[in-house]
């Protein structure tokens, strides 16, 4: 079995609120192998974003442990091992597309992860259809193009772990499918591990190697469902029986959770 990139063991987290505790995550355990693409799916508020924050060390779990490539979350973050893709584009409006893509590389330069060279970044931008927008500003781009910049920014960092928090949730269905396969194309060459949070079942199945299903709050892993589709993935695979069977399986697991 391949080496693990992320190891989560019995991770729990609750938040103090004005009227008592909110138990967000309860004993979450799963592994993600190196260069694996794993989706986390679960209803709103079940602690998916919280899970990502625990993994990159911006929050600490109440109990349980998280290991990232043999490091603690804090160490991994300090060494810039994470490329984070937030739910909204989070592009800086005063920077050009090119500058936005270099942003993470230029921050915390003592971490020893310089990321992609400038010329490679340009190459990357050209490859994903942003060649004529290098000096444009984010507000001059459509939502889909903005999201492309975000993806480019994440890959430009050349981080071993990509944490993506519902990155395509604000896009329309067609753009969303495009973006998914673009993401796969870039990821297949990168060798990075992806933890992809989503609330779209078809997206989770189409993109990932395995789907981690979380229960409603407190989030707990009900099942980890492998996706029996080969790589590289193509849109045409969404017509296969294997795809539809997995889709049904994930859907049934979530439905069973929500009704119980």
């Amino acid at each position, binding site marked *: 079995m391949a080496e693990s990139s992320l190891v989560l063991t019995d991770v729990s987290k609750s938040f103090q609120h004005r009227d008592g505790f909110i138990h967000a995550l309860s004993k979450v355990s799963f592994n993600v192998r190196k260069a694996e693409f794993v989706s986390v799916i679960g209803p709103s508020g079940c602690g998916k974003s919280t899970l990502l924050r625990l993994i990159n060390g911006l929050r600490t779990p109440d109990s349980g442990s998280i290991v990232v490539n043999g490091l603690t979350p804090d160490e991994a973050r300090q060494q810039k091992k994470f*490329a*984070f893709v937030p739910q909204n584009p989070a592009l*800086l409006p005063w920077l050009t597309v090119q500058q936005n893509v270099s942003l993470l590389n230029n921050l915390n330069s003592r971490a020893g992860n310089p990321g992609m060279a400038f010329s490679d970044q340009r190459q990357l931008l050209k490859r994903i259809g942003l060649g004529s927008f290098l000096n444009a500003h984010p507000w001059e781009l459509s939502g889909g193009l903005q999201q492309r910049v975000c993806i480019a920014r994440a890959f430009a960092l050349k981080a071993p772990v990509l944490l993506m928090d519902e990155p395509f949730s604000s896009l329309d269905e067609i753009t969303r499918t495009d973006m998914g396969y673009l993401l796969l194309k870039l990821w297949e060459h990168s060798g990075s591990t992806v933890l992809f949070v989503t609330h779209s079942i078809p997206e989770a199945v189409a993109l990932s190697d395995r789907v981690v299903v979380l229960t409603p709050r407190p989030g707990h892993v009900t099942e980890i469902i492998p996706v029996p589709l080969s790589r590289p993935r193509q849109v045409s695979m969404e017509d296969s029986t294997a795809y539809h069977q997995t889709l049904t399986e994930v859907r049934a697991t979530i439905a069973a959770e929500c009704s119980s």
Partner: protein
Amino acid sequence: MSKTNHSARLTTNMQRARKLLLLIAPLMGVTVFLVSWEVYVRVSGIRPLILPRPSVVIGHIVEHPAFYWKHGSFTLLEASAGFFLAFFVAVFVATLMVHSEFMQRATMPVVVIVQSMPVVVLLPLFLLWFGFSPWPKIITAMLFTWVPFVTNALTGLRSVDTSTHELFKSVNATRWEIYWRLRIPNSLPYLFSAGRVCVGLALMGAVVAEFFLSKDGLGHTAYVAYSRLLVEQLWGSVIVLAFMGVTIVLLLNAVEQKMLYWHPSQHERNHPAK
């Protein structure tokens, strides 16, 4: 020449005309204001002591350029010094406040105290402390402008987008990087808004101080005119002051347009009739 070419040129000409119109719009606004004033005084036959005609006042300014220049530049220097001092102190204090809960709690009452302080009442004290130097005037201008600067700087430094902040933290960006590359650019629109308000306040602060304790500046010329019933000089001082204020605000707007090209407030689609 083809027809399409002709109409294309026509539209660029129209665009140019529109740009020119927008450029001289402030001038037209002022002209309309002055002309209505002039007409009103002439028609109503109001006495010059109550309200002189603007043409007479402007005539007085034109006849005494050196006088107004000298006093105007005093006021301008004092107001600018107060304005910039207030700006830098405010940004510094807001920076401390945004980085430390303690500083924020400790400073908030001071801000309120400064805001509610009857500066005018303290002017004689300033004279005792600093004598007949520019300092009482600079400090008055500063006290008039400090609060809008602090509150806006604080809001601007603080209201960074949560996701962007989290993105910075995800690579362990330093506080300095978050400050310099995220908070500061984010606060610029707020600071420009404050700046526009503070231009008038700084001039007012300088003039108020000059009015009571100075031998120069437009506040002083207004005071002298007031006590000797020199109507033309009184209104002349007021008009020069207004002219300075308008010019500076327009300059500030131009700088803002250059620096905040990225901000929605500067995008043409957010301007009226577009």
